[in-house]
């Protein structure tokens, strides 16, 4: 049986680095020979199309709306990105019209969307032997994000050092991840470098966050200005694998792999 894992990458606030983490993790797993599917579920502000330009006519929106089949949706980027394993990508429609349509959906539609998402999970893990499905979500408590968390096996919460972000994440641990019985890990991103100049400081800070969230903190990633300056089309892990950001994410990928399903 394929022990594939579905990871929902989520956060309380926007701009924490979810998309950057999602696409780099997906690329790392694929470059290690794993079969990966990266799904853009940030339907209100899609951004993966800037990195994975595809000329397909079908979007995640169409699939959730029952207007296309999953195989119409999945684009294989393994050749283009030179990965050993398959790197399948499902993009959300970035047009204003599509975003307007998404915000008007009702509860019944969202319930069906969860069904569709669960059927996509089954197809990817069972029929296509995908090892990792990475769902890049919208921040906060939006339907699409909660659907993604409900469908996932693991929630990877990306949070920053910002006090309101930490407080919001603490709230979501109790009111969302715990209630949906999801295994959850936290990735602290954009930490000021001067706070983690040595291993002892890093350990102390990690323990502080562990007790604040009452969850395993998987790692602290410093804020790298040059990463933020990169063009959206750059996948750091593939193009600059020696960069500390890429190496940090390789370690995170290893830890996720060890934790398993």
């Amino acid at each position, binding site marked *: 049986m394929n022990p594939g894992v579905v990871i929902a990458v989520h956060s309380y606030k926007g701009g924490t680095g979810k998309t950057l983490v999602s696409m780099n993790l997906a690329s790392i797993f694929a470059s290690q020979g794993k079969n990966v599917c990266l799904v853009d579920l940030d339907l209100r502000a899609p951004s993966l199309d800037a990195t994975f330009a595809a000329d397909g006519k079908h979007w995640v929106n169409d699939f959730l709306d029952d207007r296309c089949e999953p195989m119409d949706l999945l684009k294989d980027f393994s050749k283009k990105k030179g990965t050993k394993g398959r790197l399948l990508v499902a993009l959300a429609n970035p047009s204003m019209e599509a975003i307007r349509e998404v915000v008007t959906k009702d509860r019944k539609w969202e*319930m069906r969307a969860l069904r569709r998402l669960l059927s996509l999970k089954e197809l990817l893990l069972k029929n296509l032997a995908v090892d990792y499905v990475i769902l890049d979500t919208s921040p906060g408590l939006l339907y699409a994000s909660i659907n993604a968390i409900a469908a996932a096996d693991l929630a990877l919460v990306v949070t920053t050092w910002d006090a309101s972000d930490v407080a919001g994440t603490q709230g979501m641990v109790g009111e969302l991840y715990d209630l949906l019985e999801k295994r959850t890990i936290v990735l602290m991103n954009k930490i000021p470098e001067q706070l983690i100049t040595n291993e002892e400081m890093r350990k102390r800070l990690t323990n502080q966050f562990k007790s604040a969230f009452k969850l395993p903190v998987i790692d602290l990633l410093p804020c790298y200005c040059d990463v933020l300056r990169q063009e959206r089309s750059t996948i750091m892990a593939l193009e600059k694998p020696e960069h500390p950001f890429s190496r940090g994410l390789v370690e995170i990928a290893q830890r996720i792999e060890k934790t398993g399903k």
Partner: protein
Amino acid sequence: MEKTRAPKPTEVDGIGEVLDVMTLLSLPDHLRKSALTIVKLKKAMAEDVAKETGRARAIESAYLNQLVRMGYLKRVREGKRVYFWAEGPAKAAPSRVSGKGGTA
């Protein structure tokens, strides 16, 4: 001449409230567990849900029936078996579990 009796239509209970994720989050813990399991299994008997949740079948049956009364689940009897699911006609929701007998 022998009369042929038309098959009795299967009666479906449940008033069709929407069991979306926001509703799931607002349910009390004991009912949320059962409802989440039904979402995962698609269509299942109390026995199947009990296997997943680790609770007694009779307890699970009571919770599932409570969710039917609240309108969040639908219920249908097929012979001795009673199935629960969250939306759509019973026939359209294939079961992911292969139960052997048992009632709700």
